[in-house]
């Protein structure tokens, strides 16, 4: 099962991930979730980025908040809305939101 996990909050509960039997996880950082891609709180990567999986950040939401693309963590791939549609339709079978 391939699951795309949308993350739209900066503080979120990761516990639900323990129950997802996914062979492939993709974390899509949108809304305030984009901060996971650029902040190093206390010099540490976000706990989200310490999960196993692929990471994507929505450029439109990142730039809305004044974050610069050159600050994006190397683990995270920047994507546009068009790329996001392709991910949803072609890369992942199921979607979930992490609150």
């Amino acid at each position, binding site marked *: 099962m391939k699951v795309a996990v949308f993350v739209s909050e900066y503080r979120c509960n990761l516990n639900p991930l323990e129950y997802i039997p996914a062979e492939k996880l993709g974390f899509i950082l949108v809304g305030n979730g984009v901060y996971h891609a650029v902040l190093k709180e206390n010099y540490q990567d976000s706990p989200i980025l310490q999960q196993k999986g692929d990471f994507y950040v929505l450029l439109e939401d990142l730039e*809305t908040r004044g974050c610069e693309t050159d600050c994006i963590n190397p683990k995270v791939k920047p994507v546009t809305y068009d790329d996001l549609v392709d991910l949803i339709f072609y890369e992942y079978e199921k979607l979930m939101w992490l609150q």
Partner: protein
Amino acid sequence: MKTGDVKLAFIVTKLPYKSETSRLAITHALSYQTVEVLLEDNQTITPSLIFVDEGVLNCIKNHKSMEHYELTSVETHLKNALLVEMDIYVCKESIEKFGVLPERIVNAEDIGAEKSIKIVSKDEIKEIIKRADHLLYF
């Protein structure tokens, strides 16, 4: 109602955009100019905006919300607040915690504001809060 100068401290702890909370703090603080027409001659209101913890992320410059979502940016509201010479403070410890450099903080020089956002320590923020008559958390 108290006469003289009434100091209001708007303390912002929330992130921008996903909710309107932080934007409301700024627009409410800006509304002091409207409220003044309802006050007596010997009354004034002095608001200050204080950004702490995750709230400091509102103050990163170059928001592109208008380009992407046709949404007035929080940055624009902050610049308007600076233009009317409102005191705006950002917690030094919080920006350091998130790795935000001081040069990434909003300024309003481009629209002619003389004031700028002050980066101050947590202890200084406590003093500002102590001097305020009313505290409003957003």
